[in-house]
């Protein structure tokens, strides 16, 4: 069924060919996690949209002050933290350890500020009578959808802050290197990006008309 063909097979050639996949493993794993996490967020947002569409008395209670203002402030803080994260990664790449640490910790601080602003908003809403199963304005699903979507995002921010501090301190002690900062940066930017979906869908679409 086959004939003798003597062909030199050069293994090096194949190594060359596979080089496009030569992404550092940790970075690849983070990208894969982001793909998977994006699916999770997408599922939550689709669920929210599905329910919102199917609910006639969906409330649109948000007012410019305080909700939209607060969301703007949170967005500003989170985008700024994206910038500081970027500067941190750049400093780490140019082996400026001190600077990198400073930016990473600043990012963590901004993340914490974001979380506090968020919690303050949550407390305000809970005070106004919004619960997971009811609210003063309309369908009880509103609270459930709002708290679960923003809650999932908040969980990511809080985990990110913990990770920033943990990776930062290990980086400081030399256990982690610039690549690890970069991998964490990917995560942080992803959390940023998700917020860009949460703001229009969960906040702006529910502004009182």
């Amino acid at each position, binding site marked *: 069924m086959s004939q*003798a063909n003597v062909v030199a097979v050069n293994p090096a050639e194949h190594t060359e060919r596979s*080089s496009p996949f030569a992404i550092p493993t940790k970075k690849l794993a983070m990208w894969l996690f982001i793909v998977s996490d994006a699916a999770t967020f997408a599922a939550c947002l689709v669920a929210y949209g599905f329910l919102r569409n199917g609910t006639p008395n969906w409330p649109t209670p948000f007012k410019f002050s305080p909700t939209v203002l607060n969301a703007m402030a949170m967005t500003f803080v989170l985008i700024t933290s994206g910038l500081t994260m970027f500067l941190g990664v750049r400093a780490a790449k140019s082996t400026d350890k001190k600077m990198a640490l400073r930016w990473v910790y600043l990012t963590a601080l901004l993340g914490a500020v974001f979380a506090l602003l968020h919690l303050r908003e949550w407390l305000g809403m809970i005070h106004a009578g919004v619960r997971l199963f009811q609210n003063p304005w309309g369908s009880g699903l509103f609270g459930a959808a709002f708290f*679960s979507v923003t809650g999932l995002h908040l969980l990511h921010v809080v985990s990110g802050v913990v990770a920033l501090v943990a990776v930062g301190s290990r980086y400081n002690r030399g256990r982690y290197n610039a690549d690890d900062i970069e991998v964490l940066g990917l995560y942080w930017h992803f959390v940023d990006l998700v917020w860009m979906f949460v703001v229009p869908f969960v906040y702006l679409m529910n502004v009182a008309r």
Partner: protein
Amino acid sequence: MHDMSAHALQHHAPPPGFVRKHIFSLDHKVIGEQYYGLALLAVLIGMVLSWIMRLHLAWPDVHIPGLQLLSKNGAPGGVLTPEYYLQLMTMHGTIMVFFVLTTAPFAAFGNYFLPIQVGAEDMPFPRFNMMSFWVTFVSFCVAVAAFFVPDGPPLSGWTAYAPLSALGAIAGPGQGMGQVLWAVSIAIFCVGQLLGALNFITTTLDMRCKGMSLMRLPLTVWAWFITSCMGLTAFAVLLPACILLFLDHVAGTSFFIPGDLVVSDTLQPHAGGSTLLWQHLFWFFGHPEVYIAIVPGMGIVSHVLITNMRRPMLSHRVLIYSMGALAFLSYMVYGHHMFVSGMNPFSSLAFSFPTLAITIPSTIIVLIWIGSLYGSKLRINSPSLFALGFISLFVSGGVSGFFLAQPSIDIILHATYFVVGHFHLVMALAATFGIFAGTYFWFPKITGRMMNETLGKIHFWFTFVGAYCIFMPFHYLGMAGNVRRYQAFVDDFMQPFIPVHKFITVAALVTGGAQILFLYNLIYSRFRGQPASENPWQATSLEWTIPSPPPFNNFGDRIPVVYHDPYQYGVDGASDDYVMQDSPEQTQSVRDEK
């Protein structure tokens, strides 16, 4: 590529203690065995559950001794109540789909052989890998714990359709605590599978040894790789779905509960959720899940058949692309589970087309198998027999898919035994045959001993004939109008079905009993089997270049280098009729695709 990924690989020496070596092991091979053990335990439980259900269906009044010990209310005097029948059915489905069909062909064999077949020392994240198993184990324990809570396990089926699954205890026995445990268990399971998928993909892309280009990966690796890509996104959607279901139970939300629902003469204090939402989220996971169960089997079957045909498949590439196409299409067809759910009929059409389209890659795969088999001198042994059985079951079960894919026909066949027969043949049993083929094939590598061939063949014939005896009649029952999930057939028009059900039950008992042969073979051969050589099947891929059982770091101090496509069989000019992948011998077969 090796320098860059080197730092991620944590080189580790064999651990000293028993616990680190066999229980909390970081070694991908031990983790693979643990997954296999878990699947074996799960399949035994699942099979016993199916026996109990079958006995009850054929003889509704039958006393099953000891059953009252499992549940006093569910089986007073050993006779199943209707509710308890559904509860056992739910657990049968859950255990089989999640803890057998997902874990055995994918997590068990994949963990054991994927790193070896790509020429790696281990997976890049061994700790994640260990967590993946133990998280899955915890998930299994939580699922099984549902048997022991007061009302028993949930009765909503493995699909947990809302609102039944979301209402809580008022919806029926097991719908309170049992369903909560179910949701928690499946959510945990998702996390475990995500960790596993992460490891599989990074191993395949980053840990390949020198010379192992993507097209030189064995078909098994491709199958596991494609499966992990599906798992990565499918389980990521089931996870939030289970969490929302959990919230419906414990936090008073009503994501999946519509308003104004009256259950047991009580108006439910919920408002406005959607039952369809659960189905959308569940089946977005659920359909890829079917392929997560079957694609690894395709890889194993191809691998086993090639070795025993002594020639490569007609086209290595097309087989890989077709498996990829299956995976891709599997995301677009999930709505065919919902044709009669009340979804917009136009959506049904939109989901029907890709469902029919999915038969194209499936058919290409089957034709490649059959075309390659045609005229080959297939070595008949237990692995190749089970591989042939896989093809047979996959075709038989697949053909009924043509019917179900069309909304107009599905309206009649939906929720009948036709559907049950369809998915048991094409997914459950075909995948199980893939597991058997893999077990008989790789057992010598894993244990260093051969399994008994005669017992293996007897086991095959019992299982193969039994499988058809059990599930072919399902199709006729379904067409005759036998609805699924009924615990007894008391309606007049169902009376004539009862003899068929008796036949099926006897077949199920015999076929299930024949699995004792397999268990005996597995245990006996483990300790007393004939010692196996390094490469008993004269196979070519990397796992056969290392001792049986493999040493802790797979390749010892040797770093493998690959020179060939994975399946160099029937090669003239070689010293044997095959060339190992890592042999520098310079040959090229006709089918070597360049």
